[in-house]
């Protein structure tokens, strides 16, 4: 069957999708977006976490046919998604979003450590790098999507809030302390940014 849905702000189409196929499979194997990781295939590990109509879900547990006409944000589109959100610009022009080609070629380009310029990363991605929260990196995309959503809802989360929000994401390297550090760092930077703006 054919499935048409929005991925990272752009309309996409997948053909010859098997009816029992998961959204994760469509993203990885049909659209060439391997950012969402395939590990447990049972919703246990959270490494395939994406936003479905804004809600964080395990893409391995969403049937491809269920996303027809809906909006998905993957880790490849997270930087642009965060940018749009920060600018509160919406997408009237239709020029925003991340194209499939851009997403497929996406590479982590952290900000220059001296100047803080040249950043193509969302604040949470930059914070993960700066806090050393990436070890083998396999769980990172799912954690980024989940952590970004937490900070969207709650800009100054307590440690308990962070643990709860990330409780569906496993890190087999067990680098949880640095991951918590990264979320705290992103939250603190967010507060600094809005300080004095009455936000």
């Amino acid at each position, binding site marked *: *069957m054919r499935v048409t849905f929005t991925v990272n702000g752009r309309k996409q189409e997948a053909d010859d999708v*098997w*009816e*029992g196929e*998961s959204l994760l499979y469509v993203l990885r194997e049909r659209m060439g977006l391997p950012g969402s990781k395939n590990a447990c*295939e*049972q*919703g*246990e590990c*959270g490494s395939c*976490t994406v936003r479905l109509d804004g*809600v*964080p*879900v*395990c893409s*391995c*547990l*969403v*049937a491809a*046919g*269920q996303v*027809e006409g809906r909006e998905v944000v993957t880790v490849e589109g997270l930087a642009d998604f965060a940018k749009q959100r920060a600018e509160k610009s919406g997408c009237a022009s239709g020029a925003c979003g991340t194209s499939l080609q851009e997403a497929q070629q996406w590479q982590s380009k952290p900000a220059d450590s001296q100047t803080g310029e040249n950043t193509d990363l969302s604040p949470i991605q930059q914070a993960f790098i700066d806090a050393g929260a990436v070890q083998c990196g396999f769980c990172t995309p799912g954690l980024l999507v*989940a952590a970004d959503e937490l900070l969207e809802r709650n800009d100054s989360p307590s440690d308990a809030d962070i643990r*709860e*929000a990330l*409780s*569906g*994401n496993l890190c087999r390297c067990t680098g949880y302390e640095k991951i918590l550090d990264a979320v705290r760092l992103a939250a603190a930077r967010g507060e600094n940014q809005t300080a004095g703006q009455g936000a």
Partner: protein
Amino acid sequence: MDFLRPASWEEALAAKAEHPTAVPIAGGTDVMVEINFDHRRPEYLLDLNRIGDLSEWEVGEKTVRLGASVPYTKIMENLRREIPGLALASHTVASPQIRNRGGVGGNLGCASPAGDAHPALLASGCEVEVESAARGVRMIPIDEFYLGVKRNALEPDELIRSVVLPKADGPQQFSKVGTRNAMVIAVCAFGIALHPETRTVRTGIGSAAPTPIRAKEAEEFLAAALDEGGFWESGAPIPPSVAKQFAQLASGACNPIDDVRGSAKYRRHAVGIMARRTLGWTWESYRGNERSAQCA
């Protein structure tokens, strides 16, 4: 495999009537696991995501009508006051990602004895609203819903539309044993609801029998003890001997098995402990409420 995408409830019922083997999929948190692991190859998948009604709830005067696909996250956020037992149980479901997708309809449809919603549903005394194109709506009392391991009272052409829960008229609690806080299939679980209006207590036990069950003897014993001692009026503390007997009877209601998650012996023991503790929590809350009600 065919993927059926009804746009309305009527279309869904028609599809289920035409293809009784169709497997309904809403949150997908059970069905997709089975498909991903090749444990199941249904002929038809019946997607319920496009039926908006299923994700809505209505708070009435006496009841809450909870759509089958209302995600656990929404229950936690919105219905804590009306149906506290289920809201507490919802908190313990898997992880945020799963709670964003899964709902009570899936727990009921799968009818696994380990489903987290069951103890709270049993304790609340709810009814399950099911419907077929041929015979219309049928309200199944929760006590008659679970028939066996992963078997329920649904006919092949029926779909679960909602659960109608009485609004809480007293404190409710839920407790669950597992190896960690998140992503745990219950080793065993216990739900309790005090119903001061009818002077009754209802319970629910998960993962300690072939189906979710109530501890009926424990309920009857406790109701009689509370009544005879005038506890509902006095709000006096429950004597340890009563709590102990309640716990023992709850333990005795179990018919558990040994499996990878825990032994039968452990489950019986743990259910007794949870029964005693949750009784303590709810009763303290009842006493607190009574006192503040008197002060007001």
